[in-house]
């Protein structure tokens, strides 16, 4: 019998949907008799534990320490110490975290402490022989998929890409136990001073039903004003490729891709985006992708449902005119 440890991700007083996805991922590799334990790290876990208890895990472990407020974000030293202590106590076969700012920072550091290797951003999990886990993860910016099997003896640590698994839920409530925080949880050298939110105006990209997105093909900052205007008319939000952001044409808060935001609108309309895999990783959750690009061989047309091959400026002119006509009629 082995233990699979899920580290809960919190949004205020409740666990996130991605935590339920982690429980589902753990169930995908669990054998009969394996135990799934959800760890909740918080300065006030009593109010969080209840939401973790509904995920269908065998047990919930809560760890309380003031250094775990906001899950120790920014510094991450307190959660690393807490998860390492739980791991040393439970000797789980694997530790699962979400591929988030928290998970991708805490996971590798815990893995360095508990020693069994780390797999980032897994989109598939299966059980291999001897309790080892086999994972599938995108590599080369999403151009290829790699399958790995953990080959060492230590605790297997991995992050799971959000929205891949359907969140698990349970009928009853899992028993909740508290786990004493080790003293080193409070010994912090990197300290979070402040968090500054830069909320974008209008519709949030992550919530938008329509996203209009521009890339290197636009050639400068001015076209993004036209795209923003179109997004406003359609009640949508403006996105951009990393290349356009790095060029300074548009603020990085609009960046979509592997290292930017992930969006999942009903329709993702691109102008002058070639569709590098790194970019598509951020918009692959879109229901429909629309491509406007002058290069008929551009990669974006492989993922697009509708496309126009042509100069973005002329196509946008006609598109905008039609949108305005439709609004009037």
């Amino acid at each position: 019998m082995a233990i699979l440890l899920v580290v809960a991700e919190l949004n205020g007083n409740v666990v996130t949907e991605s935590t339920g996805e982690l429980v589902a991922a753990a169930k995908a590799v669990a054998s009969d008799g394996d135990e799934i334990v959800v760890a909740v790290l918080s300065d006030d876990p009593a109010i969080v534990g209840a939401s973790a208890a509904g995920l269908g895990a065998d047990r919930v472990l809560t760890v309380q320490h003031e250094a775990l407020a906001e899950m120790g974000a920014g510094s991450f030293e307190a959660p690393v110490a807490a998860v390492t202590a739980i791991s040393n106590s439970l000797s789980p076969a694997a530790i699962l975290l979400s591929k988030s700012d928290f998970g991708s920072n805490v996971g590798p550091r815990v893995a360095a402490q508990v020693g069994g290797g780390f797999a980032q951003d897994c989109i598939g999990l299966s059980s291999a022989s001897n309790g080892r886990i086999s994972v599938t993860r995108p590599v080369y910016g999403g151009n290829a998929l790699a399958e790995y099997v953990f080959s060492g003896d230590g605790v297997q640590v991995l992050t799971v890409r959000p929205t891949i698994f359907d969140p698990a839920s349970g009928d009853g409530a899992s028993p909740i136990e508290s786990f004493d925080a080790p003293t080193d949880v409070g010994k912090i050298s990197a300290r979070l001073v402040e968090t500054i939110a830069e909320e974008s105006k209008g519709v949030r990209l992550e919530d938008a039903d329509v996203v209009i997105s521009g890339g290197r093909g636009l050639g400068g900052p001015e076209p993004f004003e036209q795209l923003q205007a179109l997004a406003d008319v359609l009640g949508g939000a403006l996105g951009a490729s990393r290349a356009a952001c790095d060029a300074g044409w548009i603020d990085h808060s609009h960046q979509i891709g592997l290292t930017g935001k992930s969006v999942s609108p009903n329709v993702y309309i691109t102008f002058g985006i070639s569709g590098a895999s790194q970019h598509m990783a951020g918009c692959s959750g879109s229901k429909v992708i629309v491509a406007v690009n002058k290069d008929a061989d551009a990669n974006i047309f492989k993922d697009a449902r509708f496309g126009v091959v042509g100069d973005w400026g002329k196509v946008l002119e006609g598109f905008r005119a039609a949108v305005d006509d439709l609004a009037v009629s």
Partner: protein
Amino acid sequence: MGVLATGTRGEILAIKIAVCVKQVPDPDTPPSAFIVDESTKRVVPPPGTPPVVNGFDLNATEAALLLKDAAGGADVEITIIAVGSEFVMDVVKRPLSMGADELVLVDDPSLENLDAFATARVLAKTIENQGPFDVVLCGRQASDWDNGHVPLVLSEILGLPCISFARNIQITDSGVRVERSLTDGYQVVEAPLPAVVTVTNELGEPRYPTLRGIMAATRKTPTTLSLGDIGVTNEDVAPSLELTRLFVPESERNVEIISGEDEVDAGRQLALRLREENLI
């Protein structure tokens, strides 16, 4: 590890910075030219496409150069460290031509397929061998395996604080002050030195090498170390994950190309088609 050299009034006199860089296949290779040899589980670069220094590692180099620019009277020394094999000298010298001082290469055929943990162990030994350093800068992730965890594991091995995704770095009297990038804003995080900091593209585009920089880089000879030189053992480079398959996922082109009398009309037709589908 190093401690900032300070003068009698506590002013910083010298800062030693290590920047870890990786040589990777050019990530701008179009997907149509991206080929995997499934039998060897390796990516086959298109003919005539040289490798590049990983983009985020050039952002890290830029971060080091910005610290040098801002250092005032302090003497800032930037050492570039690369671990790997089959280095292309013009490629790995790029950080030197941007203005870095030294290049250290750990070059061994066995480093070709190193996994992330083994890479972190070799980097740690190299840093201990070449240090002390006050700051270790790394790119946030590499564009080949997209692991994004070498710097974090490195910091744990070295026992140093680590701040990730820096878009701005300042050295202060008490340590390092970093703006770390979030998807909706940023956090200010401080740590004592020495520390590991990972750098993201939000820091700004890396500077282009000047002609003078290129000439200076040409004249510099990198320090080349073997695994024996830095005391790396077989245990250090043992993989913790075994790559069992590498492949390009199949995707079907399923696009409806919309045309019109001209490009403007095609745009109009596109909008009408999307309305028909209730998408806008």
